[in-house]
């Protein structure tokens, strides 16, 4: 917009030329026009000129102000001011360059817009975590599969999936079943052999050949076993079926020895397995906690029923054991870096077949902004870069108009809550930045 200023003399000249009148006449006309308007305004009237606008007097009220130098309050006197309101025609003519623009309604205040989105993400979160858990479990299973033969893992899958989904109630329902199985076994031992050593052997046979599956079972069956043995013992004390074999007291002693040894063996086997198979461990911890709750109830009820002293001594022992193992395990878990599904995910090559969206770049658009838009964190731009390798040679210099594909990523890979995901992305970031610098 040129700030060229035209004086009244120039206006007079132009008007004189247009109206083909003398300049003097034109000048006189303009003077009269201004004086007439002034007079009209002085008399308090407004003046309207067709196609031009309206002149109006406006009274500005006196107002308080402060003398900047002295700080004194001063009152600015009220004064009249001539307001000019352009005619609609003139207004439209002047605004022609921007005439095509219209006011755009953006909607309500931003918080109102954001709230529903947040709600959606909130509702999505538990679902997503469930899915993540499920996929993690699958990965763990895959790892175990590598270590074991197929038919055993099939059992494992069933067991683990059941246990994960089930609540404590359901697990407690399971326990009686297992208890029955054990019940059948234990009397057999006792009837077959009375010696301690031979009793251990069948037990150890149960453990060692069968692998993680069995051990997991035994970990939480462990305590029920003891309880049952107690019941068996009590049956003995009542002299219902054992008296023919052995005198009561001897039976008791050997029975308790067997019990203690069994517990020790079980514990030893369990802990050793924990060390050997860290991924499987976690599952067991959760079982252990659940089962310990339910089993404490069982043991309590048992202890209430029977008054024999050695049993009472045993009961606290059995309660303590699972707690100890779980405590040890949690500590281990913190120490050992998780060699789990996430790491596998990081290491596995990413393929970008599914595409969420496409973006056409323009000047000023950056991959980081796209990552922020689609993944919620700008650090994940590396994955977009990986998906668009062929088109984008330098992520810092994307030619305008390039069509960028936004790949669909595993939600675990772009979990902005997880520090490891961010670290992984940063690692990739460093990798690519170095590569680009080398090329330069």
């Amino acid at each position, binding site marked *: *917009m*040129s*700030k*060229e*200023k*035209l*004086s*009244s003399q120039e*206006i007079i000249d*132009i*008007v004189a030329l*247009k*109206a083909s*009148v003398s300049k003097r006449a*034109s000048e*006189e*006309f303009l003077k*009269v*026009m*201004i004086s*007439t*308007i*002034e007079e*009209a*305004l*002085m008399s308090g*009237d407004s003046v*309207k*000129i*067709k*196609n*031009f*606008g309206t002149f109006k*007097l406006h009274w500005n009220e006196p107002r308080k102000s402060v003398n900047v130098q002295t700080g004194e309050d001063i009152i600015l006197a*009220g*004064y*009249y*001011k*001539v*307001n*000019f309101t*352009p005619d609609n025609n*003139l*207004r439209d*003519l*002047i*605004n*022609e*360059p*921007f005439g095509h*623009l*219209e*006011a*755009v*309604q*953006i*909607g*309500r*205040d931003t918080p*109102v817009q954001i709230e529903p989105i947040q709600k959606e993400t909130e509702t999505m979160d538990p679902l997503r975590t469930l899915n993540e858990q499920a996929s993690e479990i699958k990965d763990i299973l895959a790892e175990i599969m590598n270590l074991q033969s197929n038919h055993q893992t099939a059992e494992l899958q069933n067991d683990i999936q059941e246990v994960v989904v089930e609540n404590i109630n359901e697990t407690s329902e399971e326990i009686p079943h297992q208890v029955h199985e054990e019940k059948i076994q234990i009397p057999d031992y006792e009837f077959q052999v009375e010696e301690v050593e031979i009793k251990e052997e069948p037990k150890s046979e149960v453990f060692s050949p069968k692998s993680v599956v069995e051990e997991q079972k035994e970990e939480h069956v462990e305590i029920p076993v003891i309880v049952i043995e107690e019941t068996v013992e009590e049956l003995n004390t009542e002299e219902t079926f054992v008296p023919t074999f052995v005198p009561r007291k001897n039976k008791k002693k050997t029975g308790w020895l067997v019990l203690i040894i069994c517990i020790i063996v079980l514990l030893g086997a369990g802990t050793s397995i924990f060390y050997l198979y860290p991924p499987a461990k976690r599952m067991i911890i959760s079982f252990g906690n659940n089962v310990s709750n339910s089993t404490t109830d069982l043991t309590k009820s048992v202890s209430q029923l029977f008054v024999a002293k050695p049993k009472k001594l045993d009961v606290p022992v059995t309660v303590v054991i699972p707690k100890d193992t779980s405590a040890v395990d949690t500590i281990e878990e913190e120490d050992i870096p998780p060699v789990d599904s996430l790491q596998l995910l990081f290491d596995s090559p990413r393929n970008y077949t599914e595409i969420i969206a496409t973006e056409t770049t323009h000047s000023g658009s950056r991959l980081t902004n796209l990552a922020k838009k689609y993944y919620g964190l700008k650090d994940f731009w590396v994955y977009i870069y990986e998906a668009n390798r062929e088109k984008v040679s330098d992520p810092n210099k994307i030619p305008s108009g390039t069509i960028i594909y936004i790949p669909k990523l595993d939600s675990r890979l772009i979990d902005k809550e997880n520090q490891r995901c961010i670290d992984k992305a940063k690692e990739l970031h460093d990798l690519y930045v170095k590569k680009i610098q080398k090329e330069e």
Partner: protein
Amino acid sequence: MNHKELIAAMAAKMNAPKSLVEDLLEKTVSTCNELLVEGKTIGFQSFGNFEVRKKEERLSVHPATQIRTLVPPKLVVNFKQSNILKDKLKELPHNE
């Protein structure tokens, strides 16, 4: 005072026919408008300046409905009275 009254008053002052005054006034107005559309400033001495100003785009929020509107930029004519006129107006007694 509307357009016709203005012409009548001016014709009386100039001792000229209304038609001539009307014609001259129309020519003056059209000239001014053209110049303003070109973005030029017109200054009438002893009266004031006519100037085109650009108002930048802005975001307005409706206080009751909270609806936010992006108001586009626009050009407006602005009139600023001259000091001579201002001094004249100062002598005008304020009676309200």
